[in-house]
């Protein structure tokens, strides 16, 4: 093996006879360090590294003197690569020594970086020979300047520092307080939104319709493909899953009725609302959160403009308008997803459509659409509120986005449950 050339490559010639373990050597070559000399151990029948051909990057010599004194002489390069092993070896070499004085001579070092200086500082501050008086000689002026920036006092202060911990009662108290503050902000927000929304409806010129249309397009029209695809697949799965148990009752044809009812009453509005929360609600929260971090919200306030009227109301209006549209697409896509399954089960298309027509009533559609309006209102307002509640820094934007999605989905399911109870009561 020769020294690496200018490109950092070195060459290795392997010569041997059959049975000398060349294959095994080639497998173990990754264990060898550059510069290793190899010998063949005939007892173990393996090639093994023996001594280093090249000098290690840093060398030291520990010379003991009279009266428990010693001198540690460094040579070579003491850098971030060579320091870790030098540190470990010196730790072992100096452990248990009883020197009363130790002189470190670094005049032979050709290169030393911050890592090397950390080692020299550690030794000279008694980190390895606590009982010895240590003196460091031979540092050049540039390194001396850097060396002076090392401080055992700073290290002790850092090691003694413990992050502030709060007790359980403190945590419960602060969480309760945060919840109460959040509740108050929600009440304020609902009030402000209601006033601004009514003002916008009764005085349409106050509403920023161009912004409403922009949000409608971005959050609604652009979401149609993904909402349709998702509900199409859900419809397909429901048709497959319900076909088998209904077949046992001889009622497979009612898969179409079931699908129609489920998609129009429940899954259509809920799936569309969840997609709205995940795709557009999170975008609302992130957008308003970033605006808050960039002090754009403050800029609006100081211009005398209400952030709720200027930013929130157009988004809520767009959310309320686009949720039913998305829901209608979700309903149709879900039904379409079931059609190929039913055709595959042997039912003609006309029969499937007839069954859907028989099973569905205007009330089912009205139930789904009225739900979707409420869901749209929830998603848009909750997302905007979370966006406006964003704290300081980019991390806060991520947190408010997560909170917007979680809160929206939670409230959608809660509202859906309330709808189920109310509609059941009305029907019965």
């Amino acid at each position: 093996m020769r020294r690496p050339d200018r490109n950092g490559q070195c060459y290795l010639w392997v010569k041997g006879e059959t049975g000398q373990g060349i294959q095994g050597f080639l497998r173990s070559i990754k264990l060898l360090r550059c510069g290793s000399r190899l010998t063949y151990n005939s007892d173990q029948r393996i090639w093994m590294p023996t001594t280093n051909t090249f000098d290690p990057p840093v060398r030291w010599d520990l010379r003991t003197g009279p009266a428990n004194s010693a001198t540690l002489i460094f040579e070579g390069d003491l850098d971030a690569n060579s320091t870790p092993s030098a540190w470990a070896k010196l730790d072992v070499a100096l452990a248990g020594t009883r020197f009363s004085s130790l002189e470190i001579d670094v005049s032979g070092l050709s290169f030393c970086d911050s890592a090397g200086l950390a080692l020299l500082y550690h030794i000279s501050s008694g980190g390895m020979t606590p009982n010895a008086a240590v003196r460091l000689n031979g540092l050049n002026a540039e390194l001396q300047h850097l060396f002076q920036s090392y401080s055992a006092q700073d290290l002790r202060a850092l090691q003694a520092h413990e992050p502030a911990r709060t007790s359980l009662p403190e945590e419960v108290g602060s969480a309760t307080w945060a919840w109460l503050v959040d509740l108050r902000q929600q009440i304020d927000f609902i009030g402000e939104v209601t006033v601004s929304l009514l003002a916008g409806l009764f005085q349409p010129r106050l509403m920023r319709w161009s912004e409403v249309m922009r949000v409608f397009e971005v959050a609604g029209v652009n979401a149609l493909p993904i909402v349709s695809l998702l509900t199409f697949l859900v419809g397909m799965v429901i048709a497959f899953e319900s076909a088998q148990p209904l077949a046992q009752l001889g009622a497979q044809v009612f898969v179409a009725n079931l699908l129609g009812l489920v998609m129009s009453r429940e899954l259509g509005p809920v799936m569309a609302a969840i997609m709205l929360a995940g795709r557009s609600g999170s975008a609302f929260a992130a957008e308003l959160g970033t605006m808050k971090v960039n002090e754009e919200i403050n800029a609006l306030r100081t211009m005398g403009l209400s952030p709720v009227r200027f930013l929130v109301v157009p988004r809520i209006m767009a959310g309320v308008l686009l949720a039913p549209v998305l829901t209608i697409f979700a309903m149709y896509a879900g039904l379409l997803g079931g059609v190929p399954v039913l055709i595959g089960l042997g039912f003609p298309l006309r029969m499937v459509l007839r069954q859907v027509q028989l099973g569905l009533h205007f009330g089912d559609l009205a139930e789904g659409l009225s739900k979707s309006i409420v869901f749209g209102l929830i998603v848009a307002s909750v997302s905007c509120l979370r966006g406006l509640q964003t704290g300081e820094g980019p991390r806060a934007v991520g947190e408010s986005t997560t909170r917007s999605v979680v809160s929206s989905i939670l409230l959608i399911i809660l509202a859906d449950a309330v709808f189920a109870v109310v509609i059941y009561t009305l029907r019965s």
Partner: protein
Amino acid sequence: MNELPASLIKVRDLTIGYGERVVLENVNFEVRRGEVFAILGASGSGKSTLLKHMIGLLPPIRGEVLISGANIADAEGADKTRILRKFGVLYQGGALFGSLTAVENVRLPLDEFTELSDVAKDLIALSKLRLVGLESAATRLPADLSGGMQKRAAIARALALDPCILFLDEPSAGLDPITSAGLDALIRGLAGGLGITFVVVTHELPSIFAIADRTIVLDPTTRSIAAEGAPAYLREHAPQQWVRQFLNREAA
């Protein structure tokens, strides 16, 4: 601190821009080892864009940037890491990681690129913080630091792996004059004491006269370098009148 050629950075026939829009065309200059080199120009002249190309964040349209003879735009994998280890960058806002304390921010490159012990890494990180005068704020989060302190902590982080070059993007932006002067003194001290080469993008004239050995002035109309030399010399003797007016803070 390594043995390096006199010209540490060579920018050759560099044409840069965003998509179709060319910002600077056929730019040539060199940065010498150990000097504080300032890139100066009016807002929108392409200073920060040039810096982003010099540190390899953006690919040039034509030309090359050589750092210690290696072309950063072409380098990949281990070669690119080797070039990146030669320099540190201070971004305009400091770009400290908000969830880490000041000392953890400085320790991060040491954790990722060295096999040093925890004590060694703490010693180095604290020494860098002491170099920039922030040893007492080591355990504070960036949000608890002032703007000037954040920039100094970011410089300490950039120094963690002993780079030979520091790129500073608008180091004095948003700082009060006293903090800004303190930062200038720190840059001069690091350049003089540690031999670090600085490339500073700024339009803060007091800073340039305080720290820069040489400067280039970018001309947004010709999309090229209008003048190159020592700032004090250019203030009096730049061939273009607008450059002299610019450096003397006179309205055209």
